């Protein structure tokens, strides 16, 4: 239950107590609002007293008479605008001259309630105002969250980019100061580690490029008929050197023709990431398998491995940017933390879905479903 603070500024006591009586027992709700709005009314007989209350109480809604004993309604309105208060003002007025109406509108009055009004008229005006307020606040909140997410992305990104630089810098200093001796052989580990960190950083930058590609490119001319078996074979070739090192065998099973309309680069992003994960997070001597299947409407691609698996508690954040599951088993595996978030974005672009089935220490299957014919440009 949210309470909206209403201030009524009017020199007629009857109007003030009328508004209080009507609104104190009134509530507003809509199907899309998660809570009801109720109202709490304060009263002021003059503009001057109204301003004091506005400063201290910051009302959400001001119901403002124009013709007041001291300063006029429009002046109160001007005051509110100058202070940039987040307040909605409705003028209550018995005779609105065009001049006053224009001025009030220019200073941001959102509504006019003609006097005398019935309880029903007041309620419907207030209902509209509450709706506006709600939408405005939701919009603000969403904008803020959007900003926050982008900001978080940047700060994590700079962390990820700086860490390898710090590591390499540290090793170079060790060498500069000849901390382990005078011969180049004394620095085999620092050199090897530096090269690895640089490679990791290169991968991160490549992933970032993929990431921006999905976000900004919409490419009509690149959509063509793509045979996913070819893409899968390509991904297997790419991962081969790594697979040999890990002694993981990778094979492809094509159960039925899997041809879809897509940008081949997007499909490569999906396959390269998931195939390399199924090797990377596998065990020495393990197996990785890609199974392609399709029906009239969609293709199904299953990426199965016999690897370390994913705990249920880690699944939720798995597709978030820069998420890396950190535990004993993943300690020596490097990655940018962007791969799965990129895969998910591409899959969503094609209006497909991705599912995980995983048992720790037994293995993981990622199943991607893609419609055969989506227009990703719509």
């Amino acid at each position, binding site marked *: 239950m949210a309470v909206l603070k209403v201030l009524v500024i009017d020199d007629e006591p009857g109007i003030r107590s009328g508004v209080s009586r009507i609104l104190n027992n009134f509530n507003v709700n809509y199907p899309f609002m998660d809570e009801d709005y109720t109202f709490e009314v304060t009263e002021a007989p003059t503009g001057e007293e109204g301003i004091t209350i506005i400063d201290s109480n910051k009302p959400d809604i001001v119901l403002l008479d124009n013709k007041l004993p001291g300063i006029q309604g429009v002046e109160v309105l001007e005051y509110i605008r100058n202070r940039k208060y987040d307040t909605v003002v409705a003028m209550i007025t018995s005779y609105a001259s065009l001049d006053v109406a224009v001025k009030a509108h220019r200073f941001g009055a959102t509504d006019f309630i003609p006097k005398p009004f019935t309880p029903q008229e007041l309620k419907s005006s207030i209902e509209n105002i509450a709706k506006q307020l709600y939408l405005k606040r939701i919009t603000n909140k969403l904008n803020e969250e959007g900003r926050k997410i982008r*900001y978080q992305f*940047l*700060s994590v990104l*700079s*962390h990820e980019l*700086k*860490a390898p*630089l*710090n*590591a390499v*810098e*540290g*090793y170079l*200093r*060790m060498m500069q100061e000849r*901390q382990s001796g005078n011969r180049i052989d004394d620095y085999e580990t620092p050199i090897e*580690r530096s090269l690895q*960190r640089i490679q990791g950083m290169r991968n991160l930058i490549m992933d970032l490029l993929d990431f921006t590609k999905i976000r900004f490119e919409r490419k009509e001319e690149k959509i063509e008929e793509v045979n996913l078996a070819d893409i899968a074979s390509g991904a297997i070739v790419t991962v081969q050197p790594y697979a040999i090192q890990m002694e993981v065998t990778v094979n492809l099973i094509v159960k039925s023709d899997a041809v879809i309309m897509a940008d081949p680069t997007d499909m490569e992003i999906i396959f390269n990431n998931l195939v390399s994960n199924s090797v990377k997070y596998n065990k020495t001597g393990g197996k990785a398998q890609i199974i392609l299947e399709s029906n009239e409407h969609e293709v199904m691609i299953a990426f199965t491995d016999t690897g370390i698996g994913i705990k249920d508690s880690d699944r939720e954040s798995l597709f978030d940017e820069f998420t890396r599951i*950190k*535990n004993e088993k993943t*300690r020596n595996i490097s990655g940018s933390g962007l791969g799965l978030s990129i895969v998910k974005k591409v899959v969503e672009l094609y209006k497909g879905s991705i599912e995980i089935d995983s048992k720790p220490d037994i293995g993981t299957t990622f199943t991607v479903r893609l419609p055969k014919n989506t227009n990703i440009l719509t």
Partner: protein
Amino acid sequence: MKKSDFTILVADDDPDYLFQTVSGLERAGYRTISVESQAEAESVISKFRPDLAIFDLMMESDDSGFILCYRLKRKYPEVPVILATAVAHETGMSFSLDSETDKSWIRADRYLEKGIRPEQLDQEIMKLLKI
């Protein structure tokens, strides 16, 4: 007391940073215990009182370092803690320990940006250990 009388606990999930920090400290003369995760650091703390601790901020979770500071200070309130991280100042995600509000919830004695030179780190440690 001399430097070799002090044992410093270092927790960092970046193996290179951990290696470099620890070898710097050892060259300066301290004894060290190095761990690669929050979990390992917690198990060390439960059994052993270090003379000083250096924690990385982001390990298993984004706030591993904060949690470790809290745990260590609860058990050994007098042991100084240095929180080290590569989180960039320029993105605004920095926590200096200058303001009272920060001090009240970050229970670290120093906050250091990663990439600090070994001599600087040694200076900070000597101040905290009053050597």
